């Protein structure tokens, strides 16, 4: 009786897992509403092009992506191709999880990448490419034209005209007095303890001459808690305490839904939602220049990587070249609202081509983008930084103390990992 039960369990359990055929490749992708249609299209297009020649592609969207990858690394179940968030690439290389792409993709594609995208995918110690992203991202200020006009503020159009800190503060002050504006600015604290808190907030300190870590010495003490960082975040905290910034529990839609926030600092992925919510009232405003270094913007995002365990290199090569073809890169951008990562695809894109509504994003990507550090310790750097930012806003804690704590946590992790050799040698 027992044996029967066990056999029955096994039958049920085993039926759940599918085994790939030699000529079928599987790619795990992130599961987001804006990306889903693109991946469906990618699978169809690839299979239409290569299915008859014997290579088929299966694209699997995975909710809760990072822990899924972690689980697969632990029990050895990675597929042929995965997506990785740009700044986590270095850690995966260091841990031996992924292999270089240089032999898996045509060099003219690599040469055509936006410089910041290429920088994001290149691992310092061996100079090889380990991650290739079909898109780039950026952040700017989105405004509600009606509310801005009611407040009587001038709206800058190009990066040279970007608000400096005093002007920005003045704008918020004026907006706070407009009827119907509950919060002048949304900094998307609602994303919670998310990569956003590093990605979206680092530009403020970088513009002020600071950074999240010293990129030469790979040391946090003195940089993560530098006076420039403290100054920039203290300013934002003051604004928050004045009630100018939507609190974390305020939800996602204060700007585009309830329209009780007049400005929002967020990335290009919000295109569709903002356009739907505000229509003609939507206005794009360049990133503010928060300090002496001028306007800074974040960049990068998820891209394709190949696990070290993947053997089927011929088919993977087909896939990577296909997914990074000018048409696919443009399609990714137009479907998701992201910026195409290849120069050749920019004119093909409706949003970001010359005269397109998103031209400002492309301009920013060229002038102001700062790549997040390509360093194996990044997961801890970002966790420490995120915690500090979150506490500064939600806990109203002392900025210096929070950044000191973050710096200590980062340096301790680097020490615990013997300096992440070959870094630090």
């Amino acid at each position: 009786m027992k044996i029967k039960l066990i056999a029955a369990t096994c039958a049920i359990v085993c039926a759940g897992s599918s085994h790939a055929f030699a000529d079928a490749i599987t790619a795990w992708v992130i599961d987001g509403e804006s990306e889903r249609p693109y991946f469906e299209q990618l699978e169809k297009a690839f299979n239409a092009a290569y299915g008859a020649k014997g290579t088929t592609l299966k694209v699997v969207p995975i909710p809760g992506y990072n822990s899924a990858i972690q689980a697969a690394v632990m029990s050895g179940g990675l597929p042929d191709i995965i997506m990785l968030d740009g700044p986590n690439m270095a850690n995966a290389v260091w841990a031996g999880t992924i292999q270089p792409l240089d032999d898996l993709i045509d060099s003219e594609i690599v040469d055509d990448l936006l410089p910041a995208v290429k920088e994001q995918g290149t691992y310092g110690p061996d100079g090889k490419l380990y991650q290739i992203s079909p898109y780039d991202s950026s952040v700017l200020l989105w405004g509600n034209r009606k509310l801005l006009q009611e407040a009587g503020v001038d709206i800058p159009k190009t990066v040279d005209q970007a608000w400096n800190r005093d002007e920005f503060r003045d704008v918020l002050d004026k907006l706070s007095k407009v009827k119907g504006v509950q919060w002048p600015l949304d900094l998307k604290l609602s994303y919670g303890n998310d990569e956003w808190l590093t990605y979206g907030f680092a530009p403020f300190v970088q513009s002020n001459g600071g950074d999240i870590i010293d990129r030469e010495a790979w040391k946090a003490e003195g940089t993560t808690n530098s006076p420039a960082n403290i100054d920039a975040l203290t300013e934002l905290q003051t604004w928050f305490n004045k009630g100018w910034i939507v609190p974390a529990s305020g939800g996602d839609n204060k700007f585009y839904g309830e329209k009780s926030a007049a400005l929002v600092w967020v990335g290009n992925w919000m295109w569709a939602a903002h356009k739907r919510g505000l229509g003609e009232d939507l206005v794009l405003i360049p990133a503010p220049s928060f300090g002496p270094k001028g306007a800074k913007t974040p960049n990068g995002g998820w891209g394709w990587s190949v696990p070290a365990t993947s053997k089927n290199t011929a088919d993977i090569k087909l896939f990577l070249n296909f997914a990074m073809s000018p048409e696919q890169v443009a399609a990714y951008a137009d479907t998701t609202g992201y910026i195409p990562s290849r120069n050749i695809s920019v004119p093909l894109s409706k949003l970001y081509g010359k005269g397109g509504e998103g031209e400002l994003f492309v301009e920013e990507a060229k002038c102001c983008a700062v790549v997040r550090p390509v360093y194996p310790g990044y997961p801890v750097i970002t966790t420490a930084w995120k915690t500090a930012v979150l506490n500064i806003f939600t806990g109203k804690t002392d900025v210096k103390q929070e950044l000191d704590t973050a710096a200590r946590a980062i340096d301790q992790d680097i020490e615990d990992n013997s300096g992440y050799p070959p870094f630090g040698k």
Partner: protein
Amino acid sequence: MMLLPAVVLLLTIVILPFALSIYFSFTDQRLTPRPIPTRIVGLTNFARMFADPLFWKALANTFVFAILVTPFQLALSLAVAMILNAAIPFRAFFRTVAIIPLLLPMTVVAAIWAVMYRIPNGPLNSVVQMFAGSSVYVDWLGSSSTALLSIVLLSAWATFPYQMLIYLAGLQEIPQDLYEAATLDGAKRWQRFRYVTWPGLRNVNIFQLIITTIGALKLFTQVDMLTKGGPNGATTTVIHYMYQQGFLSQKVGYASAVAVFFFLVVCTIALIQRVVLRNEEGA
């Protein structure tokens, strides 16, 4: 042969991991492999743990939660049990209603209460606005001063039926003639409770106190879903801290130290409760 499956499972799934967690707590074990070897680090994990203010905050929150939720939840469930033990119309209906929260998984309860606590215009804030004016709202889950209390309230709502059922059974074990005798002696409602009901629930109370406290120490689900331990660590608990360090940050060695510590705390509390209550009984 009949013994084998259960014993093997207990050994591999409970005892071996327990031994491993003690071993890991003295190493810098990671969750996923890394290119540098895992080392024995002695008491470093414990030293760091005791030096981390967030750990102390997690521990304090866990205790505060247990100290708040236990009496609140027990009083609530005893009150409801007494009402439902009385001769009232529609009693079967009321009993069924009172059990419903227990049937909802905690994740569902958390989702419901996320709406209740919404800012600026959720149901609870509407109540606040009725008294304090329409522009005022309380950021229930988002401000350090109310977040833990909000978690207490929703947790008590979610699990009080369990204790209520146990109280209900306890109430019915109290011999009816004791009440009759008390009434004959002229005891008022409160006196009947004080001198008949309360002593009659003695053993039930001991059990309830222990299971509710231990349950409270394991607080995790609702915190992870609603606040992720924030704001500023105001709702971090020991289990959430362990999860964060061991799973999200992959520091299994360090988190194992937390787990070992947690185990000791739970054992100590259970022992203290037992000893104190037993002594009291003897006195």
